[in-house]
């Protein structure tokens, strides 16, 4: 890796753009430098460390840069979260960087709001357009400023948080559709810590997964996939066993040794059934907790649980015994369990198993290290740098209510979480936003949300900007540093940079709160400036010292027994016979990856479909409905109706229809638009952001599109021919 000083010098090498840009036909010009960068050799690639910005997991990356162009992203081998590994989405970060539809200049609305008609303006004009309402708002009604962003971590969060506070508005919503709200409240109830746990898969001998998605789209898929690999094969004599319960044979489920399908929304009952057997047969390590829970668990005998969940009683008993005898073992709940109306119950019931098995704070178990201690010096403001990874759904609903009431004069939108796409349409985000007189969006792309703005300010991607990050799990307080690995492609400015500039112009409180000239200066001040430790850290990709103390769960002794609310999901089972199971797409995540061709063209591991979404049903269910693979269907819920193609999943419960999220864009560029319809439209606007909240009916229909799949419908059953 190149030392940073040399890299900074590269900053001025604009000649590169002419030299190596746009090689179309035979290159006929050779344009050398005016002044060559120090120690730079033409044709020799350089590696720079940064952070992968494609999902909130916060993996460290190194980027191979050749002739001033990023060529390849790889996992940073030194980074504790991913140790050199990277998932498909991370690999595709380059396509986000070099995307043809990236916003290259500030744009102001030139037609009706939402029409998508914009005219490019200069940054000066854009900033003056921004400052006008900002100044007026600050003077007249500081509380009328709303900021909707994705969760911002590190100093970007500090800048945004301080800006809002100094401005005088407390309306800051951080929206993340897959924020593990249910898990956080369950952890608070069971472990006494409202935080995400570290699951030590690598040292576990047994893993119970309840609709787990830790290998695909969970909190930190690369971290856990690596841990999973170690659990399977890194120990000489031990191979960890995985048992998966859930309504759908997901990618994580296929990795399990034993997949036991359960009825949708019953994962917690299975967990309680296992707990029942453990307590009944005195298989628990935590006997005091077991004693207290014995009464409550009485109602969850395997036989009772079988009635509810469809998992055979003897399976539950057998798994319970295996789990108890193969310690350390882990029980984890995934998005599928957590995002039902009863998510908190499911998560708590699952967490209970860890407590009963005595696996809290032990190797191969669950622990809660104090990851944010690196930011402890900020005191109360540390929460701005290391925010709790909540979805912010409550805040969003409250904000929407206020918007409709006309409480906001101005809204700042930022981030890739795209609320206009990821919120159920019944919440009427678009309509509410139309009540806000001035909307400014910081974005790399126009999407369903940013195209509702009056002013769109282009931001650099994670590979072009300065910053720092604190990953949610997978490390003990490691801070990742980001640097521009390439010269920014377009005339972009990061949101913290713009906020700092705006604060300066506003003067007074905001200017004092953000005392830097640029975000880069903010980062440099925070980490000791250029030279010294920060320079080394930039080369390594961050501060990865194992300095953090483990903060174990505080309250495992008085575990509250989780109570199922047993809220029924939307829809009459007669009219809507199938429970809808929505899950984050492996490739497109919450939909942000849908404009990246590599991800669109990567076959899904279950359906093997590309470029379009589908509805997964059991072949038997499909036969009953007269559906063949690839057929078009209408998917109708009480809240909406969409069409999709059928894909079979022989391991999905017969009363479930599953759909991946992420497709169905309408304003996200040509690679994303028109690739099926958004299944979010089927969801009701509930108290919680629940993905498993409705029932649907399928009916055959004719579609003009076809579903491209790599697996031959007949041949995919013939593994015997191959192995």
């Amino acid at each position, binding site marked *: 890796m190149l030392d940073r000083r040399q890299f900074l010098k590269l900053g001025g090498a604009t000649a590169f753009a002419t030299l190596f840009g746009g*090689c179309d036909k*035979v290159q006929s010009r*050779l344009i050398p430098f005016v002044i060559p960068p120090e120690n730079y050799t033409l044709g020799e690639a350089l590696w720079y460390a940064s952070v992968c910005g494609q999902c909130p997991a916060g993996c460290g990356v190194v980027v191979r840069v050749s002739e001033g162009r990023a060529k390849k992203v790889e996992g940073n081998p030194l980074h504790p979260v991913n140790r050199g590994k990277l998932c498909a989405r991370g690999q595709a970060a380059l396509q986000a960087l070099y995307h043809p539809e990236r916003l290259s200049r500030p744009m102001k609305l030139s037609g009706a709001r939402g029409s998508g008609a914009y005219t490019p303006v200069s940054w000066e004009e854009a900033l003056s357009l921004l400052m006008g309402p900002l100044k007026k708002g600050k003077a007249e009604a500081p509380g009328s400023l709303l900021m909707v962003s994705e969760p911002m971590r590190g100093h970007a969060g500090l800048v945004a948080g301080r800006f809002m506070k100094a401005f005088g508005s407390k309306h800051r919503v951080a929206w993340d559709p897959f924020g593990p709200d249910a898990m956080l409240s369950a952890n608070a109830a069971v472990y006494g810590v409202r935080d995400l746990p570290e699951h030590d898969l690598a040292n576990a001998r047994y893993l119970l997964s309840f609709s787990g998605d830790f290998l695909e789209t969970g909190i930190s898929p690369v971290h856990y996939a690596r841990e999973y690999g170690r659990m399977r094969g890194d120990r000489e004599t031990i191979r960890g066993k995985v048992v998966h319960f859930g309504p759908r044979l997901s990618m994580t489920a296929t990795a399990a040794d034993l997949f036991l399908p359960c009825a949708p929304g019953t994962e917690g009952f299975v967990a309680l059934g296992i707990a029942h057997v453990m307590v009944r047969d005195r298989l628990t390590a935590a006997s005091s907790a077991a004693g207290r829970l014995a009464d409550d668990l009485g109602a969850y005998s395997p036989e009772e649980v079988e009635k509810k969940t469809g998992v055979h009683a003897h399976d539950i008993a057998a798994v319970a015994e295996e789990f108890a005898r193969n310690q350390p073992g882990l029980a984890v709940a995934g998005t599928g369990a957590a995002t039902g109306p009863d998510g908190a119950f499911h998560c708590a019931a699952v967490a209970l198993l860890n407590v009963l098995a005595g696996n809290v704070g032990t190797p191969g178990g669950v622990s809660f290290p104090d990851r944010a201690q690196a930011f402890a010096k900020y005191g109360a403001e540390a929460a701005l740098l290391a925010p709790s990874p909540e979805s912010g759904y409550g805040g969003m609903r409250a904000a929407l209510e206020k918007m409709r009431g006309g409480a906001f004069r101005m809204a700042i939108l930022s981030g890739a979480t795209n609320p206009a796409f990821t919120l159920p349409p019944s919440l009427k985000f678009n309509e509410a936003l139309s009540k806000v007189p001035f909307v400014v969006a910081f974005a790399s792309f126009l999407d369903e949300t940013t195209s509702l703005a009056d002013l769109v300010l282009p931001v650099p991607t994670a590979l072009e900007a300065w910053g720092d990050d604190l990953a949610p799990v997978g490390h003990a307080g490691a801070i990742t540093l980001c640097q521009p690995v390439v010269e920014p492609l377009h005339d972009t400015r990061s949101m913290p940079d713009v906020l700092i500039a705006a604060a300066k112009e506003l003067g007074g409180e905001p200017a004092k709160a953000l005392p830097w000239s640029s975000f880069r200066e903010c980062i440099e001040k925070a980490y000791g400036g250029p030279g010294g430790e920060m320079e080394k850290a930039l080369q390594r990709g961050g501060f990865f010292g194992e300095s953090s103390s483990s903060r174990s769960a505080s309250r495992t002794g008085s575990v509250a027994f989780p109570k199922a609310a047993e809220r029924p999901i939307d829809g009459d089972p007669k009219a809507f016979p199938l429970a809808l199971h929505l899950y984050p797409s492996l490739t497109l995540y919450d939909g942000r990856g849908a404009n990246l061709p590599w991800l669109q063209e990567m076959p899904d591991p279950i359906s093997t479909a590309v470029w379009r979404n589908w509805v997964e049903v059991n072949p038997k269910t499909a036969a009953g409905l007269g559906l063949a693979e690839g057929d078009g269907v209408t998917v109708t819920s009480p809240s909406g109706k969409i069409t999709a193609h059928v894909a079979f999943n022989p391991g999905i419960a017969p009363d479930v229809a599953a759909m991946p999220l992420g497709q169905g864009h309408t304003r996200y560029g040509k690679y994303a638009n028109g690739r099926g319809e958004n299944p979010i439209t089927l969801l009701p606007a509930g108290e919680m952001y629940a993905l498993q909240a409705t029932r649907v009916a399928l009916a055959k229909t004719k579609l003009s599109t076809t579903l491209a799949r790599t697996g031959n419908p007949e041949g995919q059953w013939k593994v015997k021919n191959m192995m």
Partner: protein
Amino acid sequence: MARRPFNAAIPLACLALTLFLSAGAAFAETVPQPIAFCHKIHVTDYKLNCRFCHSSTNKSQYANLPSVEKCMMCHRSIATDKPEVKKVAQYWNGKKPIPWNKVIDVPNHVYFPHKKMVNAGIPCLTCHPGMDQAGTAVQKLEFGMGMCMECHRKKKVTIDCWKCHY
């Protein structure tokens, strides 16, 4: 230099063209350059080593062109009155790169590491004959694969296709 997709070619014309080219007719023309640089003066008269200007030839797969800064290292004081040197100074003062026209092209499907050749002690003039007597850059040899093969065989270097084509 970044590799690019092959050009679309009309099949039959291509056949004719290949025959035409293998007849060895169409090259060695002088390419016009923004500055009438003279290799002869630098190399033959002043005995400058090629690598003094083309400094990455032993370190990289590419032989780089000197930066304007490199030219000015000497031409701040030497021959400043010459009209062509004045042009260099103009570029330097304007902090603009000199837009040289390309003379030698290695096709997209060839990996040709200069450093391997230079470090193996192959004189530059083996492949670039007459450069020491030339004005602006000339290419007097046609870079056909046969030329590579001849030398590789003679020197008993690998002739594995995948050494250069992948």
